[in-house]
């Protein structure tokens, strides 16, 4: 059956629908239109401003203004006939084309009282000379304030930006159209090797696509070589919980007010009442969650994790030290080395991220930990990184992350603190390959 090709594409698993050719053509047409619009607008604006014709003369009259000198002869505030509205005016004389002309200049229109007009006029003294601006082609345009030219400048910037964006995208799409993905990847790799962009990309030259270790190994420890930085501060959790709780309780309060008012007037709406109960339940849950997070923040103090060496290697033995401060009783405290895979993908117009734990090596678990003020829980342990595991990996949409996770349980609630580590591939890899029986020929 014949199907119209679609210019947009959709990815499901390995399958991708749509026509990239049509998509590229659409993109070229769109950006060509943008480029043409920008170019034509720029030409029209520049030529019309040079010729003093429409649209520049209408939209940007201020660009033709020149400075002159005027002498104030009279100043007065006039009341509009039959209305309680005042106008502040100056009567000036100025030299125009070798002749001295009198001219009336309106300084302010529609003032509500006479005093305001007098305040404006106080800036000028009769007989003194002041700078003024006018358009030589229109003597009626004389004004005492220099007209701003920002509108003309902004228009030029917008028009040039439209032209540049449109032109650059057309050039990029046309170039991209005849460029293979391998060549693009090669160009991107070359750019990533430049010093100025290296910080923004992943991996060093020796270990491409492996996260940098410098951020993790730059803090010395007290007991062991390195103190690991925490991945996310617990303060952010508390702030998020507080915000959610606040918003939800406010919404619930509005619902309760409406329902109670209805009840007071003998007009109870059952459906609204049920919805209010649901909102109230969620509000109470969010309050409890926020309270739990607050208790953790107050009761469970800072967590310090130190490690004997970094980066880690598969099959390597390391020492780790945990110091957990606080003033609570923990039912259980666990330290583990965990590996998670993270994948970011587009689903429709949304960008989603999926995280999956694929490996967990328990380092130690302690039951019934009493944390007292000034006496943090401290424990040092040895652990081995499994020999046959994947190293840390990070690219734009996919990653393999290794973390030390401290997990505690307090009255049935769990708190978790994560510390990133980087796992390098096994050093001095022996030749792991075996000779294949046949060579591959395609």
């Amino acid at each position: 059956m014949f199907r119209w090709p679609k210019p947009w594409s959709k990815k499901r698993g390995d399958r991708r629908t749509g026509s990239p050719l049509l998509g590229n053509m659409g993109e070229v047409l769109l950006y060509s239109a943008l480029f043409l619009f920008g170019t034509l607008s720029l030409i029209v604006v520049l030529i019309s401003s040079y010729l003093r014709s429409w649209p520049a003369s209408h939209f940007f009259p201020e660009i033709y203004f020149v400075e002159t000198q005027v002498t104030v002869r009279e100043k007065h505030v006039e009341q509009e006939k039959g209305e309680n509205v005042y106008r502040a005016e100056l009567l000036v004389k100025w030299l125009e084309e070798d002749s001295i002309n009198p001219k009336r200049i309106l300084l302010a229109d529609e003032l509500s009282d006479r005093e305001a007009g007098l305040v404006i006029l106080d800036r000028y003294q009769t007989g003194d000379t002041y700078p003024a601006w006018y358009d030589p082609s229109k003597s009626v345009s004389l004004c005492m304030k220099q007209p701003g030219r920002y509108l003309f400048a902004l228009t030029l910037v917008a028009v040039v930006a439209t032209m540049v964006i449109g032109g650059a995208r057309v050039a990029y799409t046309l170039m991209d159209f005849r460029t293979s993905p391998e060549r693009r990847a090669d160009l991107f790799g070359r750019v990533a090797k430049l010093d100025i962009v290296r910080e923004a990309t992943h991996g060093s030259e020796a270990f491409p696509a492996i996260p940098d270790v410098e951020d993790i190994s730059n803090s010395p420890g007290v007991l062991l070589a390195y103190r690991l930085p925490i991945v996310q501060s617990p303060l952010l959790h508390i702030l998020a919980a507080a915000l959610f709780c606040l918003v939800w309780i406010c919404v619930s309060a509005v619902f309760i007010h409406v329902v109670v008012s209805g009840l007071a007037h003998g007009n109870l709406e059952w459906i609204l009442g049920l919805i209010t109960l649901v909102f109230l339940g969620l509000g109470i849950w969010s309050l409890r969650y926020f309270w739990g997070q607050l208790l953790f923040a107050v009761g469970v103090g800072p967590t310090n994790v130190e490690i004997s060496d970094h980066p880690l290697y598969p099959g390597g033995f390391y020492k780790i030290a945990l110091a957990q401060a606080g003033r609570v009783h923990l039912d259980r405290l666990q330290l583990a080395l965990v590996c998670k895979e993270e994948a970011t993908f587009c689903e429709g117009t949304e960008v989603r991220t999926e995280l999956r734990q694929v490996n967990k090596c328990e380092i130690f678990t302690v039951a019934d930990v009493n944390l007292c003020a000034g006496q943090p829980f401290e424990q040092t342990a040895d652990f081995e990184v499994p020999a046959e595991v994947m190293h840390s990996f990070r690219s734009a949409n996919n990653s393999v992350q290794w973390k030390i996770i401290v997990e505690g349980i307090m009255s049935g609630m769990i708190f978790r603190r994560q510390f990133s580590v980087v796992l390098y591939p096994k050093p001095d890899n022996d030749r792991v390959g075996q000779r294949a029986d046949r060579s591959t020929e395609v």
Partner: protein
Amino acid sequence: MNATIRFRIVDRQLVYSPDERLVCEYEVQYAAPDDLQAVEASVLWYTEGKGDEDMASHFFERRMRENVVDRNLCHCHRFETLLPHSPLSYFGEIVRICWCARVRVFLRSGESFLEQVPFQLGDVARKRSRER
């Protein structure tokens, strides 16, 4: 009219180690060699799985018709590269990293033909699949 690409990894192994030399050889068979515009050979990794595809090129070589002897891209050509330390081939649950050597032939008409040979870098992938 299709171009045929005879492409192979010389002395191919099941698994390659970092720093090992990868040698590839290809030959393009096409009835009208003058219509060939360019041939690109690359060694690269790409991701598969749940996330959007990422790709990075470790080795890339583009041969244009104007720059080769006899102006003929059909001759057998060999290229080689030292494999990097990372990323190693990996078959995880939602992230997979695949290595391959690839040859892409471009015709003057704009058409292109592709041939690739996958290979495994490092032994992580093999061990994980054995665990399963």
